[in-house]
């Protein structure tokens, strides 16, 4: 058994190194994205890149503090931290400042904080705490409803802030539930829902309904097991058709115009390169023009001359693609995959349920950001404004992701100690 006090002996240095590399690459790319001829120094704190340096330094400090905190602190105070965060989400609705359409900021002098960013790890803590209690049986309705409530509450509050992107992040916890025993059918059903929804919007309700009927008939005649469950099949078919119809209805009646156009652009139904499609188009041009090895550091014309919007925050991946080419994007994607897989591997090794659930939560949140953010820059996912972890400019998100990750690193150092 290792010495308990020396936390650094037990640290998983792979995670630390992956984290540092990502953060530093992010910093360099922010510098390139918003490079200002008059402020050439990357340390110039009047510029975004100078500010990001401060955020990185403070994040490292936060990380260190977490590593030096007692691991049990987080599981003990999980609900309290969660409660405080929920409270802050409510408060921000009342007194927060509105920045680009989202009322989600606490403005303190020139710095702003987004409680929504911190709600992610807080929710993760609460979920981990819930699943680490005794006598948990995922088959029980109560066991399913409580996590849904824990996830849903912050998501709802964030939705009220008009920050749809961040609210959707909470859906990523379905991966955690899956690991905790939720039937794989839910994942499958989730995927099916997405496929049916997308194809409904793409080819129209009628065709999808016809396809569903044909699919059901094929299943009925060719699969014996299903023949016996004809009632279930018919029920599912009706459910599917109902869903198809409701997707169209929902899009037509509940979505705002800009959300509708975003979806239409993604589906290729609208070619509005000036309006909603502009961002994605310019983003694809930026990445696509990078070629194999890129245009070189600080030579990206798309990002440098502001053709790409939000080039230091949500669209930071464009700078990577444009200036470093396919080699750059390959490296970044590999780093993220390595980080995610490493977290899952470590989580699986955890002896405490708390640490394992928390680890899965970390991976799920990071994966969701990775999926949505990079997906949108290359036109595979609708434009949903969420940052690329460790890369995008911004103090709240970097702090929040650092805390999220370092709590797991801290838990991991304790996995032997708890024996």
């Amino acid at each position, binding site marked *: 058994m290792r010495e308990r006090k020396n936390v650094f002996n037990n640290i998983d240095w792979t995670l630390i190194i992956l984290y540092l590399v990502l953060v530093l690459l992010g910093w360099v790319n922010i510098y390139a994205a918003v490079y200002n001829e008059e402020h050439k120094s990357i340390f110039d704190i009047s510029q975004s890149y100078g500010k990001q340096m401060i955020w990185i330094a403070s994040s490292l400090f936060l990380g260190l503090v977490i590593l030096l905190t007692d691991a049990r602190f987080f599981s003990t105070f999980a609900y309290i931290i969660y409660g405080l965060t929920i409270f802050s989400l409510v408060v921000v609705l009342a007194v927060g400042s509105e920045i680009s359409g989202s009322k989600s900021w606490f403005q303190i002098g020139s710095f702003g904080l987004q409680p929504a960013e911190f709600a992610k790890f807080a929710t993760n803590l609460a979920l981990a705490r819930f699943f680490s209690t005794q006598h948990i049986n995922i088959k029980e309705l109560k066991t399913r409803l409580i996590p849904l409530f824990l996830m849903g509450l912050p998501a709802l509050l964030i939705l009220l802030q008009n920050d749809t992107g961040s609210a959707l992040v909470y859906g990523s916890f379905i991966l955690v539930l899956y690991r905790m025993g939720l039937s794989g059918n839910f994942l499958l059903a989730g995927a099916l829902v997405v496929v049916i929804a997308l194809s409904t919007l793409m080819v129209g309700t009628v065709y999808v309904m016809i396809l569903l009927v044909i699919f059901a008939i094929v299943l009925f005649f060719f699969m014996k097991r299903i023949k016996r469950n004809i009632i279930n099949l018919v029920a599912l078919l009706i459910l599917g058709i109902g869903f198809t119809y409701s997707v169209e209805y929902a899009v037509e009646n509940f979505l705002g115009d800009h959300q509708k156009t975003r979806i239409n652009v993604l589906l290729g139904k609208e070619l509005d390169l000036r309006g909603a499609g*502009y961002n994605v188009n310019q983003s694809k041009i930026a990445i*696509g023009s*990078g070629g194999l090895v890129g245009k070189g550091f600080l030579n990206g014309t798309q990002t440098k001359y502001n053709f790409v919007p939000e080039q230091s925050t949500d669209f930071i991946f464009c700078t990577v693609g444009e200036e470093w080419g396919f080699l750059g994007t390959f490296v970044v*994607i590999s780093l993220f995959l390595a980080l995610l*897989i490493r977290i899952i591997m470590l989580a699986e090794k955890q002896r405490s349920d708390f640490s394992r659930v928390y680890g899965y939560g970390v*991976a799920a949140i990071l994966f969701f950001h990775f999926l949505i953010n990079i997906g949108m820059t*290359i036109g*595979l996912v609708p434009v949903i404004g969420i940052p690329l972890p460790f890369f995008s400019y911004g103090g709240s998100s970097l702090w929040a992701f650092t805390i999220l990750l370092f709590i797991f690193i801290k838990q991991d150092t304790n996995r032997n100690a708890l024996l």
Partner: protein
Amino acid sequence: MANKSLASRKQTVIAIFLVVGLIFLIRLFYIQVIDESYTLSANNNVLRYVTQYPARGLIYDRNGKLLVYNEAVYDLMVIPMQVKEVDTTEFCKLLEITREGFIERMEKAKKYSKYKPSLFEKQISKETYGYIEEKMYRFPGFFVQPRTLRYYPKPIGAHLFGYVGEVTQGIIDKNPYYKSGDYIGISGIEKSYEDVLRGIKGMKIKMVDVHNREVGSFQNGRFDSAAIMGRDLYLSIDGDLQEYGEKLMQGKMGSVVAIEPSSGEILAFLSSPSYDPNLLVGRVRGKNFKLLDDDPVKPLLNRAMMGTYPPGSTFKMVNDLVGLQEGTLTLSTRYTCQGKSSSPIRCTHTHQSPLNVEVAIQQSCNPFHWQVFRAIINNSAKGSIRENYVTWRNHIMSLGFGHKLGTDLQYELSGNIPSAEKYDAIYGKGHWNSMTIRSLSIGQGEILVTPLQLANSAAVMANRGFYIVPHVISSIGEKGKKSDKFQKVVSTIDPAHFEIAVEGMRQVATLGTARWYQIEGITMCGKTGTAENPHGDDHSLFMAFAPADNPKIAIAVIIENAGFGSKWALPIASLMIEKYLTGTVKRLDVEEDMLNVKLYQ
């Protein structure tokens, strides 16, 4: 523990991660490495190819006086692809165009190309540009391109200079140098010397940011090329003489052409009614062109080269020259004239009879010249009537009639000296003779000449037998280096015979029809003409050169439907000769009589 089986779910989770990562990498590989169109789009975003239009060469007169120069204007260009939501109302107000006009222009531009700049509004004045420039940043996709337009300090020389216009698709298809929106000389000197005047276009590649602001040159201008201005032209035209001639011709329909006989250089070249060449420049060109084109007096017609007239009596000594050359006429040949009762052609003057060639020219005796013509054609010792006519015609044509002279201006007509074949066709072969075509002897009938040809014939007289192809260019690029590409054409008439004809012309000016308009200290040789015009009143003609012994100027004046040659064409020619040779006009009474007279409706 149920956890055992659940632990295997990590593989599913990891598989999901890997699949997503793989999809991303495939997609990235496709758009970054395989699909080239994004690189192109990125370039189109930031690179703006700005054509550098050279200013056209300037045009000076023979004394170095500036006649044509350029003024800066701005073309508003648009790249449809880069146009974002525009405050159309404000934009239209800035440009003073309608909303429909805006939409129409955008559609046109989109049709041409979404990525390439096309002309949105041409030739915005300096003032409007200054106003728009400040607001340009709000209209991404639009930018201005400096151009130059012609400007004429004096409203003269419209037909001489011609005009400049935008290239048509036909021109673009034929000549790859020209691109849509380029300017090209369409007539006059602008067309003749287009290659010299246009200069060489340049290209600047600039980088712009998303707000359409220029952020610098592409690769420090490595691929840029500067525009090279067109070369200047020095004309043989005397600006003062041209201006004076246009002043005199105001209110008269017709033409004046003056040539320096020794060089063939055209000194004045004007057609009336004329127009201010500034009218056919820039945005007002289309509107004005239509107005001028619809004008019944045809101000756009270049009468100096495209107007053809019967030369009338100014043709008489030309006919005499053929007689002298063919030996059917000598200085001692005398023919009788019965005045008004002469047949087949009456004489309109009262004079001695019989008379010799010099007096016949001086008195413009019709019967005498008919008999000269008859002697040439009926000279059976030489050949048949047809053969003799062909000989006569060849001599006439060697004096610069009946064919294009090959001047350096565009759209010259050849006039008409009818061929024998033509008469065969009209009358039947062998069914025509000197009697049939007798009108030719006095410059009537089918004969048609242009004012340029008539002036050239005056130059031939002055040179006693030759002409240099008349031209308006003196030198290209710098003053003084004379062009030698205009050839000397020697007539088939012996120079000695010209002395007789010239003596007749001298007497015209001293004793004959032109004696009232002598110029103090200068001997002028000339010939008036009153050409019968089947379409209306007689044309007034005069051709002359001066001084008699060392000719500096040969001139032809034709005024349509103005009656006697001595009444209008002669005094105008005389004033112009005085103006050119002495620099001033002393006969203010004559000048007064000519100015401010309107001879046509």
